């Protein structure tokens, strides 16, 4: 009846997961209770859960990402403290637990933390910057989000029902085959990643179509902000490589569930093929994360220098260059497997060639500041921190791309330090910068600058104190994924690293305080004009928070840096552009398809993990019926009345007029 599931799946004898899950469940129940008591369900259902507004979906993605980042951080704290105490001793986490932790940490951070954050940003920002009202497929967008959430939920269920994978964030065969991993851990991984992978693919298709087919009039390719270019490149990579992940995991699933022999030890299976295929996805995956981060920094450097981005065309070229070349380097993750000198040479050189595209970007950001008026707002601090951190991370990346050097550092703590260097310094810093930058556009008020800067300094210093020791440990020969340590010489660095984690914790606390303080002071931090940073692209041409229809009238773009041009003209002519004639706008209706699909895919996934076949069948059938029913719907859109458009737009124009008035009087910035 319940397949492999019985009471022994609940870890009654393991205090740590048990207590964590009890706290978690109580917390969730508490939140749900609060919502019920306050009667917020209706609001949540209408405005968020069934919303197909790209901004709402973007915000929900970000929320999911932040929650998962905290979950992943908890794992990171456990790993670092375990390694600091488990020197010549067992520490406090047995291997089967420790192994689950690093596997969960990697999986969660990359697939359920960083990916949702990056996708959330693309969702929120790109349509605004393109001057359109939504993405190409709003309903699918919601499906994509809810599938990602479904995958995240499955991973977290594994915390207290059964176990999670213990074979790393990429389930290397043959260790992940049934012979060596008979438990449900790998199955949790497979179904969670598979389900969220479908969600990601949907987003990729959606964003590619949006950027290529949905730009406001006049928004030619070479007028798109660089963030839109990086969104396009990143989404193209999603479309190109997530299918590889899907196929590879499907093969492993066939091995595990039906005794196929893709990657098994016996009957001629080829575990090396698993490595090959998973990295054909895995490597481009990290560029999927970092390309939008590059886009974020491009926007920020130009805005806070008060100048156009230096070398726009080079930026575009470098973005596309990285996009294509990143698909030709995957073997650098297994230089030491023995493919031989010719193969290693090819992939080593193509890997290091990525440094060219990245280097050009770095220099262009630097020259964007040249001749500018650089304002050190919080986003700018994160960006400078990024430049420093990422260059070092890139340097160690290029070192790893030199095969003889990799022969010494592969899978070492040096490697661990490299990728945190680029991921935290590149992606996570970018996300924090972006949140500070676009937060007013989402919620109508800025985040508190003081706490933001404090968070930056703690995170920056904490990062370096945590990971510099890991570089040194790597050079001392320490390999990754060690549950306990037998080499005395590594002790000082392991303990130093924990100090860094402590500083990081302070940074995270500052971040949380910042959020709370900003909400409390929201009236003081209110953004009236819709343009809090003196921005240059179209998202600043609409009120904050952006209305659900984005633009009362679709902008008509007449040059690069669309909004900057509009502003300059207003300043030159001393008045705003004449009021356009408003016409009613049609917007897509809310849809429960997303949550419905996610519900049944969670059920189906859970059933498959535990071999509850009837439930899996039922779930699939329900999903199909759901699709047919929703496809039968006739009305997809509703009309926004002109009065509403005028009301929103007039408010913004009034604020801008007041601003112009101040300039006219030559008085500049009122403080």
């Amino acid at each position, binding site marked *: 009846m319940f397949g492999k599931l019985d009471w022994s799946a609940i870890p009654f004898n393991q205090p740590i997961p048990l207590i964590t899950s009890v706290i978690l469940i109580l917390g969730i129940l508490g939140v749900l209770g609060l919502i019920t008591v306050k009667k917020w369900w209706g609001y949540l259902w209408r405005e968020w859960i069934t919303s197909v507004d790209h901004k709402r979906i973007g915000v929900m993605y970000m929320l999911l990402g932040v929650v998962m980042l905290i979950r992943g951080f908890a794992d990171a704290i456990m790993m670092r403290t375990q390694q600091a105490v488990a020197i010549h001793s067992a520490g406090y986490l047995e291997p089967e637990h420790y192994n689950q932790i690093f596997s969960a940490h990697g999986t969660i951070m990359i697939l359920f933390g960083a990916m949702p954050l990056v996708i959330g940003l693309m969702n929120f920002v790109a349509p605004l910057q393109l001057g*359109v009202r939504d993405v*190409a*497929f709003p309903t699918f967008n919601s499906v994509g989000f809810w599938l990602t959430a479904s995958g995240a939920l499955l991973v977290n269920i594994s915390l207290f029902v059964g176990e999670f994978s213990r074979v790393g964030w990429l389930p290397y065969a043959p260790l992940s085959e049934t012979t060596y991993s008979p438990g449900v851990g790998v199955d949790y991984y497979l179904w969670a990643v598979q389900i969220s992978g479908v969600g990601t693919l949907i987003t*990729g*298709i959606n964003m*590619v*179509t949006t950027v*290529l*087919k*949905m*730009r*406001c*009039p*006049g928004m*030619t*390719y070479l007028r798109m902000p660089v963030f839109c270019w990086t969104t396009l490149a990143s989404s193209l990579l999603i*479309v*190109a490589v997530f*299918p*590889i992940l*899907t*196929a590879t995991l499907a*093969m492993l699933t*066939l091995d595990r569930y*039906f*005794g*196929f*022999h*893709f990657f098994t030890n016996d*009957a*001629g*299976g*080829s575990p090396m*093929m698993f490595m090959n295929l998973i990295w054909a996805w895995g490597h481009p995956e990290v560029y999927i994360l970092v390309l939008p981060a590059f886009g974020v920094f491009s926007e920020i450097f130009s805005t806070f220098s*008060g100048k*156009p981005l230096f070398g*726009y065309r080079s930026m575009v070229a470098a973005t596309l260059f990285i996009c294509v070349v990143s698909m030709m380097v995957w073997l650098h993750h297994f230089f030491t497997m023995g493919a031989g000198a010719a193969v290693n040479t090819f992939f080593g050189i193509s890997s290091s060639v990525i440094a060219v595209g990245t280097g050009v970007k770095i220099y262009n950001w630097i020259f964007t500041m040249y001749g500018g*008026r650089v*304002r*050190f*707002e919080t986003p700018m601090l994160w960006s400078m921190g990024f430049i420093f951190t990422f260059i070092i991370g890139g340097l160690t990346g290029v070192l790893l791309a030199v095969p003889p050097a990799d022969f010494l550092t592969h899978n070492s703590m040096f490697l661990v330090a490299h990728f945190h260097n680029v991921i935290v310094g590149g992606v996570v810093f970018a996300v924090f910068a972006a949140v500070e930058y676009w937060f007013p556009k989402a919620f109508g008020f800025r985040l508190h*600058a*003081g706490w933001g800067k404090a968070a930056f300094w703690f995170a920056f210093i904490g990062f370096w104190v945590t990971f510099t020791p890991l570089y040194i440990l790597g050079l001392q020969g320490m390999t990754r994924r060690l549950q306990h340590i037998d080499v005395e010489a590594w002790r000082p660095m392991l303990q130093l690293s924990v100090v860094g984690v402590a500083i990081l914790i302070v940074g995270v606390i500052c971040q949380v305080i910042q959020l709370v303080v900003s909400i409390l002071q929201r009236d003081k931090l209110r953004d009236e*004009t819709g343009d*809090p940073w*003196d921005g240059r692209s179209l998202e600043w041409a609409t009120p904050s928070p952006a209305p659900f229809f984005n633009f009362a009238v679709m902008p008509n773009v*007449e*040059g*690069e840096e669309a909004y900057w041009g509009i*502003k*300059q003209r207003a*300043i030159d002519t001393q008045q705003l552009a004449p009021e356009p004639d408003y016409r009613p706008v049609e917007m897509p209706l809310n849809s429960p398809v997303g949550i419905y699909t996610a519900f049944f895919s969670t059920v189906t996934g859970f059933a498959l993990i535990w071999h509850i076949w009837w439930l899996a069948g039922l779930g699939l059938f329900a999903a*199909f019926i759901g699709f*047919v029913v929703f*496809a039968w719907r*006739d009305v*997809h859109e509703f009309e926004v009345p002109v009065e509403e458009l005028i009301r929103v737009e007039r408010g913004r124009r009034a604020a801008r007029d007041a601003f112009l008035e101040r*300039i006219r009087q030559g008085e500049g*910035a009122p*403080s």
Partner: protein
Amino acid sequence: MSDLPFPIAREAVLRRRADPDLAGHDPHGPKEAVPGTGHGDSGPASKRIIVGYGFWIFLLSDIIVFSCFFAAYAVLQGSTAGGPTIKDIVDLPRTAIETGALLLSSFTCGLSYAATNARNKLWTQVFLGITAILGLIFVGLELQEFIELAGRGATPQRSAFLTGFYALVGCHGLHVSVGGLWLATMMAQVQLKGFRHEIIHRLICFNLFWHALDIVWVGVFSVVYLMGAAA
């Protein structure tokens, strides 16, 4: 906290007024409005194109899934673990019939879309129906092949080569079957709802899907069956 808003904007304006040349060299192309704004590749495309294009992108990703199975097949082809080889299991006449059925179905599928385009419900349905029958024949033949092979002990569990074979061919077969399910749903929708916009968009997508499956099949029969027979 810094003083917002905009010291920069103001300074820029003042400078520019004082000395226009200071503005420096402006690379951002012509400042005048580009003619044809709102046409060509600027301005959102029609829903029909967006849907068709989005589905096209999806198909590309689906083709990449297939290419993984092709790669796996190519790599595992020789790993027969003492079991049957590809030469032992191909049956070209059946492959020929399958190929014919699928090719014809691609043809009739196209004709059904031509009829859709002319808003002719009867012929749309007739050709969709024929497509469905041909698809069914294809899937039936493939199932028959699998059952026969399994009867001889050539199951996917037997060897890595057979794993690759069943997975590649089966993945295609699965796609055709799902396409069939979709096709049936579409026929019902056309019958009950007529040629509404959404229905036509979906028919465009279905048409693309079915043709793409035929293209994949060209790869399958060439790489698996023909090369296998020739090997």
